[in-house]
């Protein structure tokens, strides 16, 4: 039941407990209780809408930053990561394998704002060796949802 609830919520976080219950053949109360447990256990960490800000009047500048660090004695990756994630501008950060260490996603209001953040806040952090900033030019797909082109039903009633 857990996994089924998670799968449904991952696709549509707004699905009501009643609808989930109907889909998986359970009852509303049990689903609500299970969701509460999943939240308590921090398995469900949040609920977000996928928004195409480009279709609004809001100005946005998103950037993807590759960060190389040198973890020092007593200051592992986790501590450096925390110094980065504490900034509200940082919407995502992952430790990754390969040519650099952290993939950091920044959501700013303008390219200037992002550039300022990188030069004045991110780069000076102790242990950060280098950064390489790439601005997002166009968002095609996010969280499994195609942003670029809304789906249209083209089927005919034939069979």
């Amino acid at each position: 039941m857990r996994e089924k609830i998670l799968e449904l919520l991952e696709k549509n976080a707004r699905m009501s407990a009643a609808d989930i219950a109907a889909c998986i053949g359970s009852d509303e109360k049990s689903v609500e209780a299970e969701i509460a447990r999943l939240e308590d256990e921090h398995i469900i960490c949040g609920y977000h809408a996928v928004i195409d800000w480009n279709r609004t009047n809001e100005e946005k500048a998103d950037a993807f930053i590759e960060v190389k660090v040198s973890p020092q004695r007593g200051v592992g990756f986790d501590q450096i990561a925390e110094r980065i994630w504490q900034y509200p501008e940082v919407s995502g950060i992952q430790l990754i394998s390969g040519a650099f260490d952290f993939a950091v996603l920044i959501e700013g209001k303008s390219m200037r704002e992002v550039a300022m953040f990188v030069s004045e806040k991110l780069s000076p952090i102790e242990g950060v060796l280098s950064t390489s900033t790439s601005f997002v030019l166009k968002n095609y797909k996010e969280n499994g949802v195609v942003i670029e082109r809304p789906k249209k039903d083209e089927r005919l009633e034939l069979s």
Partner: protein
Amino acid sequence: MRRALNSFIESIPSSGIRKFFDIVAEMNDPEVISLGVGEPDFDTPWHVREEGIYSLTRGKTFYSPNAGLKELRDELSLFLKKKYELSYDPKDEIIVTVGGSEAIDLCFRAMLDPGDEVIIPEPAFVSYKPCVRLAGGVPVVIDLKNEDDFKLRPEDLEAAITDKTKIVFLNYPNNPTGAVMEREDLEPIAEIIKKHDLFVVSDEIYSELNYTGRRHVSIASFPGMRERTVVVSGFSKTFAMTGWRLGYAAAPAEIMKQMLKIHQYAIMCAPTTAQYAAIDALKNGDGDTAMMRDEYNNRRRYLLKRFRDMGIDCFEALGAFYVFPDISRFGLSSDEFAKRLLKEQKLAVVPGTAFGDCGEGHLRISYAYSLRDLKRALDRIEAFVKCLP
């Protein structure tokens, strides 16, 4: 000028689904939503489409062998074996057709002599009766009942058999009812068929959309049935490939030889691009089918619950992507019900009678729609029945 047309063809009515949706089209109202479509709402899996594109890039733009690409027939043979314990020789017992639709037509034309009777349990998909008649056969209908879960009962079959009966047509999982026949349901049917020396055409196009938790059972896998059964299926439903127009049939070599002859002269071969894509679907599409099946199953349970909560009797469909609720208690015919639902709540569903007279009192609701669409549509049905006396 002379009459251009064959009067027999003219006498064949056009599909009941079409008729109803001509009304919908005439309304031309953007508010109308529909649960009338009989094809998956999923796109063909990307790796399958990619394979079709790749075949074009490589210049695979020629006719294939009449029976279909050898590699595709090999894969089909493996697929039928692995999934349903059916053994067919890819060399001369499998044909790749333009949809299951063509395969159905081929069966009747290859097997029927004028006046031969074909037993068709209804409610049934719209093409069977016309195809039988076009092949010179005579359709004999058995009315299936809600209280039997729309399964074919041995005593009803026995009663319908005459000395003219040649073929018994089966379609499970069923369009439009969603009914499934399990092993124990099929066994007595197979015995009767052997006893009367009949043949079976089994349309198993929804075999992968089965929510019983058990495997689909093909009547052709029973002892003594292989030699008297043609299995018809296709890629449309299993792999969401309706527009590719690809299906197949598997039959004993003797029957296949004649089916192939008709196909050779009338069609030549199924679309080559689609065949290359289909090879990939069979090899690598299992996960996609499982994903779609899970999603359909969620929707199915959702719909059944909603109907139950509305007090509408709906038998538990266990296959395909349709439910077939019983609306007879509202005192309207299915046609009236569907028309008023369309006018008053702007929801289009297919009246049960489009699938045979015994569909009266029912509606076919397709769940090849997102949960969001289903929810909106079911709210409209709920609002509609609340206003009925």
